[in-house]
């Protein structure tokens, strides 16, 4: 069923169940929000999205209110804007306001709101929450003094990731988002929570002071970790990737796993293989191959025992040796192990090659990366 709704004088027809906020966005009408996230169930905590609806005596949150047929909505009146300003001042009265050193400066919804509403003086100055203890987990910086309790991290962890590693604790002014018993976060470290945080409360530990959003060039690409192929965006500063994110309008909806989001350091690693290598010395049976490849010492196989070659050379070498082994020992002497980091198509081609070209059934891949 379609409902007719009038927002700020503009008419729209929306399907039943559409919220006032969604309807307004369809009409390109901006309503400020902090706790709302289009992929998560509505929360209604920040109160910025309040609007007036004809026939309802008090302001209501547009993010939680479903459209009714014939509804008439006004998104901005002096009273509404005044309430929004009070709400912002209250949030900022309990916020470090240290934008100068914040990772998210320039990319922070709270900062943006303060800018739009011109909040400089604060009528409601008072005690601010301060926390001594920092979360000791390896990936995620959790600066709870910057947390505005919008609840997005709690929701994404529960509704999207299905983990529920964090939740609200305590009451009143002391309310706080934390893992059970305030222990260090010990979860999947997918970082979905980081990606939905509207302020600088959650960020990647490894991103710290490497560059803010205005300094980076964004490069859209595909995650190379597995066949899923999530779309990612590299944040490049100079020639370094300093952060990886994913956009909401990708097929993976902006959600990543710990590897895609935080496992990007291999890109600039000196150990990274960039050209094919051919082993040039006979295998030393007492030492498993590759063990000390990177380090080079310890009487293991060292860098000098490999030769950098071109792709043509490498492929010739492989086909030559495969033909040779097959002729000498038969196809069953050959097995293929491919990588879970290849795409499905690549893996398909690989097994095809082993089965059809080589003629062996010994083929698998390291799906357990």
């Amino acid at each position, binding site marked *: 069923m379609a409902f007719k709704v009038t927002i700020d004088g503009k008419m729209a027809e929306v399907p039943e169940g559409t919220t006032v906020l969604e309807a307004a966005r369809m009409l390109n009408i901006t309503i400020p929000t902090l706790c709302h996230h289009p992929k998560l169930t*509505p*929360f*209604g*905590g*920040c*109160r910025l999205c*309040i609007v007036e609806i004809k026939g309802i005596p*008090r*302001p*209501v*949150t547009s993010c*939680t*209110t*479903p459209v009714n047929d014939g509804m008439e909505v006004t998104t901005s009146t002096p*009273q509404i804007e*005044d*309430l929004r300003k*009070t*709400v912002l001042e*209250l*949030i900022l*009265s*309990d916020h470090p306001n240290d934008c100068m050193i914040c990772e998210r400066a320039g990319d922070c919804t709270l900062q943006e709101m303060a800018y739009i509403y011109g909040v400089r003086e604060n*009528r*409601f100055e*008072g*005690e601010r929450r301060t926390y001594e203890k920092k979360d000791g987990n390896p990936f995620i910086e959790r600066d709870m003094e910057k947390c*505005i*309790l919008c*609840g997005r991290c709690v929701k994404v962890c529960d509704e999207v990731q299905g983990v529920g590693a964090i*939740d*609200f604790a*305590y*009451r*009143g*002014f*002391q*309310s706080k988002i934390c893992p059970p018993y305030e222990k260090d976060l010990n979860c999947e470290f997918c970082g979905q929570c980081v990606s939905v945080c509207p302020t600088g409360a959650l960020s990647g530990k490894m991103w710290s002071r490497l560059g803010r959003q205005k300094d980076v060039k964004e490069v859209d690409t595909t995650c190379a970790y597995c066949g899923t192929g999530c779309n990612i965006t590299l944040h490049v500063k100079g020639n370094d990737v300093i952060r990886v994110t994913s956009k909401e309008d990708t097929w993976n909806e902006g959600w990543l796993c710990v590897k895609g989001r935080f496992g990007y350091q291999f890109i600039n690693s000196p150990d990274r293989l960039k050209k094919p290598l051919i082993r040039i010395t006979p295998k030393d049976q007492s030492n498993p191959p590759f063990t000390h490849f990177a380090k080079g010492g310890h009487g293991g196989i060292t860098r000098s025992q490999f030769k950098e070659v071109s792709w043509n050379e490498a492929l010739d070498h492989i086909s030559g040796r495969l033909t040779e082994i097959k002729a000498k020992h038969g196809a069953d002497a050959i097995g293929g192990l491919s990588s879970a980091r290849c795409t499905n198509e690549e893996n398909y081609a690989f097994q095809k090659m082993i089965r059809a070209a080589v003629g062996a059934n010994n083929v698998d891949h390291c799906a357990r990366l």
Partner: protein
Amino acid sequence: MNKRITIQVCMGTGGMAAGGAEVLATFESLMKEKNIPAEFKKECSMHKVGCRGLCARDVLVDVIAGDNRTTYQYIKPDMVQRIIDEHVVAGNPVSDWQVTDDYHKFHEKQIKVVLSDCGNIDPEDIGAYIAAEGYKAIDKVFNAMSPEAVIDMIKKSGLRGRGGAGFPTGVKWEACRKAPGDRKYIICNADEGDPGAFMDRAVIEGNPHAVLEGMVIGAYAIGATKGYVYIRAEYPLAVERLKKAIKAAGERGYLGKNIFNKGFDFDIKIKLGAGAFVCGEETALIASIEGQRGMPRAKPPFPVHHGLWGKPTVINNVETLANIPYIIKRGPEWFSSYGTEKSKGTKVFALTGKVKNTGLIEVPMGITLKEIIYDIGGGIENNKKLKAVQTGGPSGGCITGDMLDINVDYESLAKVGSIVGSGGMIVLDEDDCMVNVAKYFLNFTQSESCGKCVPCRIGTKRLLEILDRITKGLGKESDIDLLLKLSGDIKSASLCGLGQTAPNPVLSTIKYFREEYEAHIKDKQCPAKVCRDLLTYSILEDFCKGCGACMRACPAGAIKGEKKKPHVINAGACIKCGSCFDVCKFKAVSRG
């Protein structure tokens, strides 16, 4: 001696705290020891009964001989012997210990419906409830009424929710009955989190079966198959009696499968709350039952459409439900004969503060505040001047001493900026500082805010901080306006009833006692002499006899003086505890 003797010992939480259990045990063992003749013993029964209101006088004991009821007050175990000797055995009531006239006055202006059986029947004995016409209403409903007829009757009675908001109960039931859903629930809200409120606890402790009967009738009316009683774990006695009552009702077939062979199944489960005030809010309560953190959510959708586990759900207050059986039995006209045009029936209040008779009262809606305070409450303690009455707890406001003719009903109280609320009524006298009263309630609401929405979580904290600095003499001239502005914004912008009403105590104390705020801010004075930081203590030379009592009492060593010579307080060292003021026999310590 042939008369049937009944001894009733008040064993509500008040009675228990005062030693009711020991008193009852002493009666039991002494009667046995006395070897009271067998025929007498057989006819003597002992009851533990629920709260009857005047908790200040516990332990209350009734000795009923035939038609004569004698009520004793302040009874301790060592007094039992004399009662047995003189009254039970010799037939001469002990006049010294009997309740005085004002005890009877306390009861005269009251009309007891929900509390009518509390204090008269043994709440742990379903037989006692049945003997007092209990479960007759279910009988009538199941055998002679359609669910629609029940809803009609409740609508006609004019009963409105006693949990605070005063929503018409019949209308709520009807909405739930009509809401589509394969499963429906009814929840009894026994969270009772307002500070100082104990109406619901008393009803459950004193007459749990009435609440259960109300729930069964509600379930039948809306078509619910399962009910929950959400009760705070801090009410162990109420929980225990409720458990016993549910079990007994199940055994008699008032709960369970196929009630009255009508093919209707209904069961009740107890769900313990952990004592968060906000869990009394219906959507938070539902979240809590579902195992989530008790945080409210925005309405609509309302619980009658989308409640527990997403199913249509009615939530009613304990007192609301306890009214139901009486309305069914006595008819809607009888119920609506009490009260005013829009507020029908009676209401239970917890009368506390500076009145002589504190305790639980049940009065018809529309009674004047004056009748409550002077006739039932016995007036102000120590003949002090009545300053204000705070109703509705942390969500309510105050009514000043010169508005005593006001009728106590939903509309009249709302008109003056207060509410009936769930029934807290605190009487304040000239020694109470209104800024401090507001601060007390804000301290409560800010720490009980669930933390979900900004205006309530941070706004109430800021209100409290401003009030706090005013009581410390650090208030600024602009603070009153700031309080008014912030209060208004919190009310308009908060998500649930907690935040929407939390500023009420501030608004109403400023409305009626603005000059008291100004005295704190401008003159750095607390007119009621409550705010410690604004007090100074000094010794009046002319009155001081140099006895040294104050010097010994002062924990800070701030008082010096030679024997028999006027003493002096060193203002710098004084911590303003008031010990000297309390201890001086010659009124030589001045507090200003």
